[in-house]
């Protein structure tokens, strides 16, 4: 059953157009960059999944899945490089975040798209930084394929704790929230 808050929007064409542009550009860019049949196939699937997710936000999982497949094939193809795969995956994340923002704008009441765009920008920045750090960690000495995930996982935990909103911690001790005894 559809939630009473999830009603079809009056206008969100701008955000939807931007989402479609980013999603298709990522697909086309990946296919052109890697120049392999599997990447091209995954790119087509990603473009279709983006359009599908615009219509139904539950299909964002499909978009992310096809995006990961596209980035992986782009990396594993003959002409693929790690930098290229990172650029592709940042594009996939930007597309999924824009899809989620478009879905959130799909509410009949007016909503300011500014904060939504800022959130998309933050997510893209986090993705670029973490992917870059992981690549750099991959160059560290040690068993290949182990150091990078370990360093990256530790970095993610530190990042999540550091970016946690401070007021959500403080609000539990807010005197206004205490029950009278």
């Amino acid at each position, binding site marked *: 059953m559809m*939630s009473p808050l999830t009603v079809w929007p009056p206008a969100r064409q701008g955000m939807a157009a931007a989402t479609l542009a980013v999603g298709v550009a990522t697909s086309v860019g990946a296919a052109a960059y890697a120049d392999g049949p599997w990447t091209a196939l995954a790119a087509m699937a990603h473009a279709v999944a983006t359009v599908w997710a615009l219509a139904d936000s539950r299909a964002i999982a499909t978009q992310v899945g096809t995006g990961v497949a596209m*980035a*992986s094939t782009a990396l594993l193809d003959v002409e693929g490089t790690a930098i290229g795969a990172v650029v592709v*995956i940042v594009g996939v994340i930007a597309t999924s975040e824009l899809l*989620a923002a478009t879905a959130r704008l799909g509410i009949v009441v007016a909503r300011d798209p500014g904060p939504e765009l800022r959130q998309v920008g933050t997510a893209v920045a986090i993705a670029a930084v973490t992917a870059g750090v992981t690549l750099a960690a991959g160059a560290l000495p040690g068993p290949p*394929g182990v150091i990078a995930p370990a360093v990256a996982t530790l970095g993610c935990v530190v*990042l999540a704790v550091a970016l946690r909103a401070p007021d959500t911690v403080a609000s539990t001790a807010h005197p206004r929230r205490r029950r009278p005894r």
Partner: protein
Amino acid sequence: MSTGNATAPRGRADPRLLAYLAAAGASLVGTLIVGRAELAAIGVPFAALALLGLVDRRPPRLRAAVAVDAHRVLEGDEVTGYVTVDWDGQAVVDVLIDRLPGVTVVEPAPALGWSLPATTGPVELAFRVRAESWGRHELGRVHARARRPAGLLTWESLICPGPTLRVLPRPLHLDALLKPSEPRTVAGAHLARVRGPGTDLAELRPYVPGDRLRDLSWAATARTGDPWVVVRHPERTGTVVLLIDVTVDGSASSTEALARTARAAWAVAEVHLQAQDRVGLVASGRTTAWLPPASGRRARWILLDELLAVGGAAQDRRVTRPMGRVSLPADALVVGVTTLRSPSFTRQLVHHRRKGHATGALVVETTDLVAPPVDIVDAAAQRLWRGEVEVERHRLERSGVPTALVAADDVAPAIAALRRVLARRTGATRAVAG
């Protein structure tokens, strides 16, 4: 004021959460299997975003209260209200009041909803609605959806019901009373057939021992030389039972038709209650109601409340169980207020007439509410519908139920016409009985 806490918030994961976790897991496992560190660079951003979205998983514990500046308004009045929403911590909150029967949203349009950026509560949100149709309406329900900034979990809950708004029918000017067939023994405004202390002249007759001296007609006595006394009709109260047709056929005009029916019924009820008559109510159609006849100020409020409940139930499309035929007082004048859209209502009126009650019908004109025909088929359908209404009206007339047309909310001419016909029929009945 309606207040409430979100009793059972429903948490939902964002569609991205599962996808991000799966992508991160698959990528990191792939890294370990293939042994290429670059694969980790694909999965780590997803892991970071998923972790960030799950850092604050505490439900925001939404609370809300709704207040309106007036709980009792007339049709067409605007009502200003406030929703006060509070929650724990910082969150992006969407608030929506849905299911608004009997009112239309003025501000914020087109829906009574707000989308708040990431902030902390409490927040007071103002709104304005216009009362459109009579009845007792529960002003929707307050839904809220909250999400922590950058969070991947969403909580939705029904926080509290809206306040109850009583929309009274617009007052119609009416100063004429219908005449019940058998006025009761209590002093009131209707002339009784019997003679006794009163103000309305019945006849002059010669004085007989036992007559009160104050009843002597001094002019007649002086003229004739013999004592004559004035005989008067006493004023008594009557019993009026309003039989209201609350048929809702689903058409766009049925709401206004129902409102017109209510206005006419309330006008008749009010003028008779002012005259100390006992007024009862029977509603039939979408909902049913039965209020035994009573008089006085208390009865006025009870009747108004019942009328509003009938209006609210009809607007909410709540279907109540059909009511059996009620037993009306023998002296009751039954006044049907109907749009003649329901043949079963016509049968009810005829039933009361056959039981011996003085019965009349105020037929509320609704043809002006129908949009002009767009094509020949539409025009034919409208002609058929008007024909059916006329057939129902003639069926009533043939069955001894006089009808009068209430056009454009002007109920006074209809009451006057009905009063004339009822008086004529009562006179004819008396002549036959005599």
